[in-house]
């Protein structure tokens, strides 16, 4: 697979070599199978539900991707969803704040939660895995403390901001699309985005080319916090309530979306488009299983298997290709040379290259 991709030229070859190609192929296959086996899958109503279901996790996954790109991990966004949904509910029902101001305040709360994560994981030198494991617990604890663990229902006033429709397309899905476009442009076309890749690719080298590594690391956590807060707002308006139980396990689904999309947990490799593909894969699988009335148990198991396969394919790419080539060699009567050129031609080519290289 790798070798074929390596030989293709032009835009097709470039696409085949890109890491996003694998997840895209899987998604296409998945949609095809879903459409063939599940009559209701392509119904407008179902697609609308699909978009609604995946929006929150997809938005959180943007933050997870940025954090993962800098070779860190954020386990707290699910808890930030709970914290912000409870806070939203309190601001609207107890303080009677204007929904717009309340939303801005909630986003600031998310930024603050992210800042705490980022500060201690970078300047504080506590591994992000450990520190956000702590805040995973702390933020959810705070969400429980806000109303003694009792959910608050009947918020009102939020839906025109977050739960309306535009030409039949639900707002959450639109928000997700816009945020993905912004994140894509940020990573590709700004210095800040490039520095995120640099920090994840080689921390020491990043420092030596003058990048403030800790600041970059803190920044991605703040962005992740804001996006998780946004997820909390969507959740609250969608369910017209706030609850300390919201968002459980969402951090893992978001990380899974990034990883299925091909992001490397070692940092520096991954793309925002691929994460969207990853999030869609998870959503489509769950949607199809729902349509077939498969229970939660098997949904969880299936999602887990998909993660394992996706990461496996990525890790074993080289091996898969090598085994394939070796098998081919054994089967074919004569060994195919990788580059079928005569010695003379090879010598001439080398001479030419040397001459050009100025050796």
């Amino acid at each position, binding site marked *: 697979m790798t070798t074929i991709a390596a030989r293709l030229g032009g835009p097709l070859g470039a696409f085949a070599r890109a890491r996003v190609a694998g997840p895209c192929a899987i998604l296409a296959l998945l949609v095809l199978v879903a459409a063939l086996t599940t009559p209701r899958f392509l119904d407008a109503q179902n697609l609308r539900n699909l978009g609604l279901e995946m929006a929150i996790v997809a938005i959180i996954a943007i933050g997870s991707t940025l954090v993962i790109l800098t070779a860190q991990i954020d386990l707290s966004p699910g808890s930030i969803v709970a914290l912000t949904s409870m806070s939203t509910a309190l601001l609207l029902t107890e303080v009677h704040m204007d929904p717009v101001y309340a939303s801005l305040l909630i986003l600031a709360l998310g930024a603050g939660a992210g800042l705490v994560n980022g500060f201690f994981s970078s300047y504080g030198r506590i591994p992000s895995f450990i520190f956000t494991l702590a805040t995973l617990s702390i933020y959810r604890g705070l969400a429980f403390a806000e109303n003694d663990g009792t959910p608050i229902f009947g918020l009102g006033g939020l839906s025109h901001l977050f739960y309306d429709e535009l030409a039949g397309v639900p707002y959450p899905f639109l928000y997700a699309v816009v945020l993905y476009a912004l994140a894509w442009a940020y990573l590709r076309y*700004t210095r800040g985005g490039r520095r995120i890749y640099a920090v994840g690719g080689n921390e020491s080298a990043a420092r*030596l*080319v003058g990048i*403030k590594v800790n600041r970059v690391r803190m920044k991605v956590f703040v962005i992740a916090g804001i996006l998780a807060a946004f997820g909390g707002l969507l959740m609250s308006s969608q369910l017209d309530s706030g609850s300390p139980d919201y968002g459980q396990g969402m951090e893992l689904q978001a990380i899974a979306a990034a990883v299925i999309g091909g992001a490397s947990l070692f940092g520096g490799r991954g793309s925002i488009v691929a994460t969207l593909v990853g999030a869609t894969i998870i959503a489509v699988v769950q949607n199809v299983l729902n349509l077939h009335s498969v229970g939660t148990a098997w949904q969880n198991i299936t999602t887990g298997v998909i993660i394992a396969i996706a990461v496996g394919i990525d890790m074993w790419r080289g091996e898969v290709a090598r085994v394939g080539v070796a098998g081919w060699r054994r089967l074919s009567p004569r060994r195919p040379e990788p580059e079928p050129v005569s*010695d003379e031609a090879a010598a001439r080519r080398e001479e030419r290259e040397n001459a050009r290289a100025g050796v």
Partner: protein
Amino acid sequence: MHGEPIWETRSVTKTFPGVRALDKVSVRLHAGEVHALVGENGSGKSTLAKCLSGTYQPEDGHVVQSGRPVELRNPALARELGVAIFYQELSLVPALSVAENVCLDGVASRGGFVSLRGMRRAARGALDRLNVSIDLERSVGELSIAEQQLVELARAISNPDVSLLILDEPTAALGPEEVSRLHRVVRRFAQHAAVLYISHRLEEVLSVADKVTVLRDGRVVGERQTAGSSLREIARLMVGAEIEEYFARSEQDSQRESLLEARDLRTPALPSGVSFVVRRGEVLGLGGLIGSGRSAIARAIYGVDPLVGGELVLDGRSLRLRSPRDAIAAGIAFVPENRKADALFFNLSVPQNISIARLDGVSRGAFLDLGKESSRGREIARMLRLAPGAERREVALLSGGMQQKVVLGRWLFAEAKLLVLDEPTAGIDIGTKRQIYRLIDELTERGVGVVLVSSDYPELLNISDHVAVVRRGRIVHTARRGTLSQGELIELASASENAQAAA
């Protein structure tokens, strides 16, 4: 001179997609002989070593042991048949004792258990075969780097039946004293086994080896007895052309204005303070052993180590460097010794690696101009004589020399006024080395100042306009080019070598 070789390769061929790494390579290794393998990067030296140590299997030809073709299907099998390979990267466990480290590959274990007595005996045997004495009970973390390397070597030959020892660039990290110590050990070991010695340093090869095989583009282009061969002849074989003006360096007028002045510079690693001047268009060489303070000076100039005293003056202005960021803003560039760990971004393309230190230079307003980035990258690549199309390849797939050019290109693009180069040609082939020297020369002609830290003494003495010898955090001597011999330099650098090794 001998009878049958104990190990040999008979027209071994190995290809990788698009490259014939080894093309009918035959090398005969005799017991009692140190056989050197030299060649540019990518000439196939390491591939041949890997074919002999079982990491790669040749597609054609054979590896032959004592006249009998053997198939080395994996490294464990090669080790069993008596091939030991030694890499310069240390892979010891600092917390374990010398004896435990020597037996790390399971020499003294039986059925999953380790016999302490057997381990000590095996370790003692291995060290004896090298004729070195190191306390078996000491933990490796307490040893000097040179001693650790000897332990690593003992570990490589812990199997008593080793009949071939392969050393792949064993001295890249060593000072001259340590090199000659290693060479004594290797010569002694070669009395009863074959040694294949892979190195870039031709001076070393001529002093340690009996025979030298030169590889170029995967083919053997010559085999010589070292006695009676000249460095020049072998270098010519390696690059396939006459080495004219190998160390390209035009004469500088000495009356230039000063670019960088260090006045009693002090950092935690340089407690006694150093002072020196780099003039515009001048190369200041820093010579000395590893750990002498050369690299500490480089780090201080680049703002990596904080100053605790003294000052740095660039272009007449006093600098306050709190980080490399400040140094870059002032026009100072740094090429670190370990380009893989400290300089290159393997997840970024070549143009992106070049632009990273000055992203403003490829931006339009708040945004990156990707078109400009790749066209500027191509320009720099051409200036550096990177192989055509190399700027489109993944950085990880470029040869060491090309990677170093990419790092240099980064600072060319950032238009640095002062370049600090830490071992800029370590592990780089002769052809690229020459191009890097030429590049340094071109840059200095444009008025760029260079601080060159190098353990390659011929390079240091020929490229530098002034050489400062660093010993124990002090500059002990400064000499103009041509007034210091290699012998004098080594003597000055290691006058208190023992005190150094303990540090």
